[in-house]
């Protein structure tokens, strides 16, 4: 029978702590950029102008229909050849996750905006409001409320995706665990600890999101 020994991990919290900090940095960067970019692309998807709609559609289909790990490998190994200088693992991982998140966010924005009844547009237009103002004051405030559950789910998915950055040697949680397990020969404890950290952080969040979903349905 295998004897578990979590003592090393408890005595050296620095390992996982360093990993968690990097995971959070990657998450914050890719979530922020992804959301901002997603809003712009979502507007493009919603637009009836071809020169806005087409590039936005291609972007969304490209990043939604290829695996995110392939995207990360592309940004880390392939893009530097094209641009002539190498990217750090953090930059490449952020680019891939942000691009992926933006494509998903764009679809949520578009669906949210489309879900607002046409009468809202007509009423605002009959008051002489401009497109930008209708969007900002009437449509988005209502649409964003409906988007909250979908966004929260995607945000949790994104947090899970940060672990992929370990494959391009970005020192996030999973990478630190691999490092520790190869030095201490304790893969069971190392990988179990990472799984537990993810679960402890994300489980309460999934419960809150489930709450949102129930509220949104009413």
């Amino acid at each position, binding site marked *: 029978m295998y004897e578990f020994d979590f003592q090393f991990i408890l005595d050296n919290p620095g390992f996982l702590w360093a990993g968690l900090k990097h995971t959070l940095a990657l998450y914050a960067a890719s979530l922020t950029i992804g959301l901002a970019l997603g809003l712009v692309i979502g507007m493009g998807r919603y637009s009836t102008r071809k020169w806005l709609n087409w590039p936005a559609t291609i972007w969304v289909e490209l990043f939604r229909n290829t695996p995110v790990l392939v995207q990360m490998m592309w940004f880390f190994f*392939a893009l530097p050849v094209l641009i002539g200088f190498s990217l750090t693992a953090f930059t490449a991982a952020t680019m891939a996750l942000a691009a992926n998140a933006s494509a998903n966010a764009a679809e949520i924005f578009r669906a949210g905006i489309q879900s607002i009844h046409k009468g809202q547009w007509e009423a605002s237009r009959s008051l002489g409001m401009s497109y930008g103002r209708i969007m900002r004051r009437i449509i988005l405030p209502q649409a964003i409320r409906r988007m909250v559950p979908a966004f929260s789910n995607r945000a949790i998915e994104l947090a899970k995706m940060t672990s992929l950055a370990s494959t391009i040697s970005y020192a996030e949680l999973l990478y630190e665990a691999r490092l520790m397990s190869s030095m201490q020969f304790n*893969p069971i404890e190392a990988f179990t600890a990472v799984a537990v950290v993810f679960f402890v952080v994300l489980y309460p969040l999934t419960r809150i999101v489930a709450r949102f979903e129930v509220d949104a349905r009413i």
Partner: protein
Amino acid sequence: MDYDWQFGPVFRNFDLLLWGLGNTLMLTAICLVLGLILGLAIALLRLSRLWIVSAPIGLLIDFLRIVPPLVQLMWVFFALPILIDVRMTPFIAATVTLSIQSAAFFAEVFRGGIISIERDQWEAARSLAMPKATMMRRIILPQAITRMIPTILERGIELLKTTSLVSAISFADLLFQATQVSQSVFRPLETFTVAAGLYLAVILPASIGVRLVERRMARSGVSTVG
């Protein structure tokens, strides 16, 4: 950008990439089938009226759905063999991890599908004195599975994308083969672009197909779950 694209070296190794794509598709199919079968079993346990059965199963489902798939894969590949003393191959680790993960997902879909079946169906079946297993097999599940079709298809596509993670434990899927080819011909840009194109060529038509199925079901008034 005046980069000189040269796809020749990549296309000379195209058979290696196609071999990888074949492995990707095979792994997806195996894990989808195992995930559905195992998912149904887990859903039935989850629906058990015995608290001592349904509560731990619920926690297990949550755990498998929340912990990132790559962490689970690493755990099964590096940690599990020490724990139970078996010889682990990348293929077994990949199949076990992705099947169980899909099963946890499908369990919730099955549960949603089963409880979405209206009460009068249960009552009608019961009033015919049908045994519980027959009722499940003949009345409830056929209707529940129809409602689950779009979700199952969507999940299949998600699963195909997730299989790319197995390259991290050296299973020879499309992404792993692309890494190998790019290292042997020193053309990462072309190789990874072609690999991404191959994924897109499979996944994009599949997603469009799923969207069509969804639209058709919605138009003919079939209710769906998931």
